[in-house]
Every structure is written in structure tokens, then in C-alpha cells.
């Protein structure tokens, strides 16, 4: 039983971090078609924000909770700056956005190295997250369970924003038909900016979860960005349900493979599985337009 519960639970919490990272991407990539390769670095920024919050507010009990909105804000503002400074000039060149943001990611990574050192800094978990819960033989750390809670909150918040608010309707209208939305009096520029802010902010929240799970280091974004993109791709665009399922599956499958073989083999097989999956279900991967074939 333990050999089953351990990977299932660790995989679920890994999937939760992946989900928070992927949610932001699903928003900026899925809704806006912008491929932000610096998203991983926003995650890293969120992690360092957690660290810095802890430097200022020394009580770990409070600082981590405080770090969640602050990290959202920091990463969100970074995203806003990126959108306003670079991406908005490039909406018609999505592939090029990808490369520009690779460059932005490099700069942010080096900046983090220069500011905080390459070694990485520790983040203490709050007292109320110390300890673990024994589930069928697996000592499930509270911090890991907390990432799941965080993911659920992020998911719920995003879903509520998209489905229940006026702004959410504006986003959806803009995605479906930009010109029409504009004629209806929606400021699509504003929608773009806010979407990017929220999507990037979610990465910051993911960073808090990462910081709690494994501390900070300048390159932590690179290990999440590709899996997160694979999650968005496999989940299908504009589909929160798909993203959730894909994140959970990638997390759990990787955990089981890690358990059975090794971490490296797990990475390789997971990638192969995603490619094979795309062979079977490429839906959402392409859109065919008619009338004006542009």
C-alpha cells in the first residue's frame, strides 16, 4: 500500500505546484497566444519574495502568509512591465515573443545570481506547517499539503475571475473576437495588461509553493517552465479542466516512474508519453480558419 500512496501523494503535491505555474501560462499563452519563457523566472521571483519577506518579517508563521499576496504583486508587476515594455509591440509575432522572453529570463536569472548569490537561500516553513500527517504509511509533510491548498485557491480564484466577474467576461470576449470586443467598448489594451498581470502573478504564488518545497535558487524556474508548458499543451487550450487534469497526471505519473525507475528515467518517459499523447489527441493544438486564410 505504501508503494502506492507515496508516489500518489508526492505526485499530487508536485502536480499542484505544476498547476499553479501552468495556470498562469494557460492564461497568458492560452488566452493571449503569448509564449512567456520568463514565466519560470517569475516563479523564481516569487520564491525570492518569500525569502525576502522572511528577512523583513522574521516570524515564519506570518511571513509565508504575507508572502503570498506580495509574491503575486511582485511577479504580477514584473509581468506588467514585460507586457508594457516589450510584449505589446510583438503580439503579431508570437514566436519572436518566445525568444525575447528567453532573453528576459536569462537577464532575470543572472540578476538573481548577482543579488542573492548562485547558491540559493533557505526559506523556513511556518510553525503551523511543521510536521507531517501519516497517510497509509507515508509521512505527508504539511508543507506539501499546503501547496495543494494553494493550488486549489489559485484555481478557484482564477475560475471565479474568468466566469463571475465583468473583467472575466471582457477577457473571454477579447479572446473570442478582439475587433468585436473593441467595438463593444472594451479596452483590449487594458484587458491584455491585466491578463498578463494576473497570469504572471500566479507564477509568483507558485514561487511561494516552490520556496516552501525546496528553497530558492536562481535557476529554479528552468526546471518548471518546460513541464508547465507541456501541461498546458497536453491539457488543451483555454480549458482549465484540461490543465488541472494534465498537471495532476504529469505530477503523479512522474512520481510513479521515479519510484519504479529513477528521476532521470522518469523525466525521459514522461516527455515521451506527452508526445505520444499528442499523437492520439492533438485537439486544441491547431485551429483552422477559413475565409481569409492568413
Amino acid at each position, binding site marked *: 500500500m505504501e508503494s502506492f500512496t507515496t508516489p500518489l501523494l508526492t505526485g499530487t503535491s508536485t502536480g499542484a505546484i505544476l498547476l499553479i505555474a501552468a495556470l498562469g501560462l494557460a492564461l497568458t499563452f492560452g488566452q493571449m497566444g503569448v509564449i512567456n519563457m520568463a514565466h519560470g523566472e517569475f516563479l523564481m521571483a516569487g520564491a525570492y519574495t518569500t525569502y525576502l519577506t522572511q528577512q523583513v518579517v522574521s516570524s515564519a508563521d506570518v511571513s509565508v502568509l504575507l508572502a503570498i499576496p506580495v509574491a503575486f504583486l511582485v511577479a504580477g508587476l514584473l509581468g506588467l512591465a514585460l507586457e508594457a515594455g516589450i510584449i505589446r509591440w510583438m503580439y503579431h509575432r508570437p514566436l519572436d515573443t518566445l*525568444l525575447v522572453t528567453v*532573453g*528576459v529570463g536569462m537577464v532575470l*536569472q543572472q540578476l538573481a545570481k548577482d543579488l542573492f548569490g548562485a547558491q540559493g537561500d533557505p526559506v523556513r516553513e511556518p510553525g503551523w506547517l511543521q510536521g507531517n500527517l501519516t497517510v497509509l504509511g507515508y509521512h505527508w509533510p504539511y508543507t506539501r499539503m499546503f501547496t495543494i491548498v494553494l493550488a486549489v485557491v489559485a484555481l478557484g480564484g482564477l475560475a471565479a475571475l474568468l466566469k463571475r466577474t465583468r473583467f472575466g467576461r471582457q477577457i473571454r470576449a477579447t479572446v473570442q473576437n478582439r475587433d468585436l470586443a473593441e467595438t463593444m467598448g472594451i479596452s483590449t489594451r487594458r484587458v491584455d495588461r491585466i491578463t498578463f498581470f494576473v497570469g504572471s502573478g500566479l507564477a509568483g504564488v507558485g514561487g511561494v509553493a516552490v520556496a516552501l518545497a525546496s528553497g530558492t535558487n536562481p535557476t529554479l524556474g*528552468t526546471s518548471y517552465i518546460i513541464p508547465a508548458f507541456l501541461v498546458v*499543451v497536453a491539457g488543451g487550450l483555454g480549458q482549465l479542466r484540461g490543465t488541472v487534469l494534465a498537471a495532476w497526471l504529469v505530477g503523479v505519473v512522474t512520481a510513479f516512474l521515479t519510484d519504479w525507475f529513477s528521476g532521470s528515467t522518469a523525466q525521459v518517459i514522461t516527455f515521451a508519453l506527452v508526445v505520444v499523447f499528442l499523437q492520439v489527441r492533438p485537439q486544441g*493544438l491547431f485551429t483552422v480558419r477559413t475565409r481569409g486564410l492568413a
Partner: protein
Amino acid sequence: MSAARRTPLATALRGWGGLLGIALLALALLVVAPAVLSDFRLGNLGKYCCWAIAAVGIGLAWGRGGMLVMGQGVFFGIGGYAMAMHLKLEAAGPGNVPDFMQLYGDGTMPGWWEPFRSGAFTLVAIVVLPALVALVLGYAILKRRVRGAYFAILNQALAVTFATLLVATIKQTGGFNGLNSFPTFFGYNLYDPVNKQMIYSIAAGLLIACLLVVWHLGRSRFGELLVATRDAEERVRFLGHDPANIKLVAFVAAAVMASIGGAMFAPIAGIISPSDVNAAASILLIAGVALGGRASLLGPALGAIAVGYGQSALSESFPNHWSYFQGALFIVVILLIPAGLASLPPRLWAALPRRGRTRKAATA
């Protein structure tokens, strides 16, 4: 209708111009460089040439075919490791296994190493292996109409996976350390400066050869079709072509060139390791192509050489800032001069006020 008459001439000139450019580069690389550079600098230039060979392929796949091949390190690695395996076996001598297998493993050699004892097999494998991998992978991805960002992401994921696989297979591929210590190259002593120069010449020659191939493809109907596919893939479908096939050809060609570059890189650098083929290495290749001009003929090659040189030179003077330079390079080039440096001279040329031209137009 002077325009109508002049344009074919201009087109012809462009064809000649490309050839002239290649000839000048050949002169610079094969004649001038060996004469003026020290052995050490020439070796470095040889390394840049290997990257440039891969970059020429990227120019074809990305610049002309619109496929952002962010995982060319994989093919670079296939060629590099194939060559390195042969050189390791050559160093081990007939019947012996490479030294690292005795150190890290149990001294037995995996069966798939055995054919690489043959130099001929290795040379064939350097071309055929990447072609096969690119064919299978490209077929799976491109036929499913995966393109744009998805294609790029899957490619990069592939590079990450490939590097992970290499690091994890210590007994088979040397792991993180990669393969190194090659005393000889097809029997030629690699420590001998004369032979080093010879290997440099081969790399530079192969670069020129790849440029000629791309020059030719650019003038061919395939070249036109490839550009057309990049600009309007669906439209090409309604010309009776399967765009996937057209892109597949370019993808395979780019893979083979990357592999050739990697194969020369191993003996010149004296090492091939996961860090030469991972996602970061793949992105560095893209940086050169973007800088030089992705869709131009010489741009990718010159850009790759420039980035290689920049990395050596800048890391000598500003060790900590190479990452900033590289990041800034992406941002500035892609944002402001997406067609790369190759696009600047024509633009400057066009911006210059020229009386001669106006007069000509007036009389026409």
C-alpha cells in the same frame, strides 16, 4: 517598364552575390585565418565554425521554414557523440573498451557501441542517424500540424530530455562528464598542430559546403515553396503540396547539418558533454542565427561565429556579464532588428539619398 527588365538582373545578381559572399567567406576561413591566427585562436574559430554549420541549418528550418528549432542541440549531440564514440574506440584500440567504461562501469561495452569502431560506419551514422530521428520525430510532430510555439516547446523539451538521458547514462555515455580525451582522429594525432589545422580546414570546408547547399536550395523551387509555407502554410496546402512534407525536408536537412557540426566539434573542442547539447546550448545556437539574420544566407553562419567569439572574448573581459549580454542580445535583436544584422546594410543602403537612382527612374 524598366523595373520589369531590371528586376531579373537584380535577382541574378542576388544569386551571384550569395555565391560571392560564400567565396569571400571561404577565402577568409580557409586561406586568411590559418595564415594569421595562432593555433589556439584557430582552434576556437574551428569551434565557432561547428556552431555555424548547425546555425546554417537553423537558418533553413527557422528563417526560411518558420520552424523555431529550439532543440538542435539534440542533433548536434547525435553527431558529436557518434564521432566521439568512434574516437574513444580508436583510442582504446581494437578489442578494447573505452577507459571510462572500465572506471565507472564493469568494463563491458554496450553492444550498440560496437559498430562505431568502424570509421566508415561512423561517418554514415553522422548523416543517417540524425536524419532518421528528425524524420520520425518531425513526421510525428509536423503531420499532426503541431507548429509555432508548440513545435518550439516540444523541441526544447526534447533537448532537456536528451541531456537528462545523457547525464543519467554514465556507463554508456560518460554521463555529465561526457566523452573526452581523443588522442587521434582517424589515425591522425590530434596533438600535432599540423593535424589541428587540417581538422579546422575540414570544419571550415564543411561550413562552406553547407552554405552552398542552402544557397542552392534558396534558388530552387523548394526554397520558394519553403518560404511560402512559412508565410502561408494553409495556402500551400491548396497548391497541392503537403506543407508537412516540405517542412519535414527542411527539418531533416537542418538536423543533418547540426549533426555534422557536432561531429566536427568533438575532435576540435576535445570534448562533447551534455552541456554542449542541452537546452541552453540549443538556445545559444538560436541566438547566433537571430543576430546574423535568420532568413539570410550568410547571416546565421556569421552570427554563430560572432556569438561564439563574443562568448570567448566577453567572458575574458567581463566574466560575470556574459549572461546579461546574451539576454540583452535576444531582447534587442528580436525586438528591434528581427531580420538580424544582415538586414541592416540593405536598409541603410535604401535610406541613403541617392541622386543617381532618382534620375534613372525619371528617365525610365
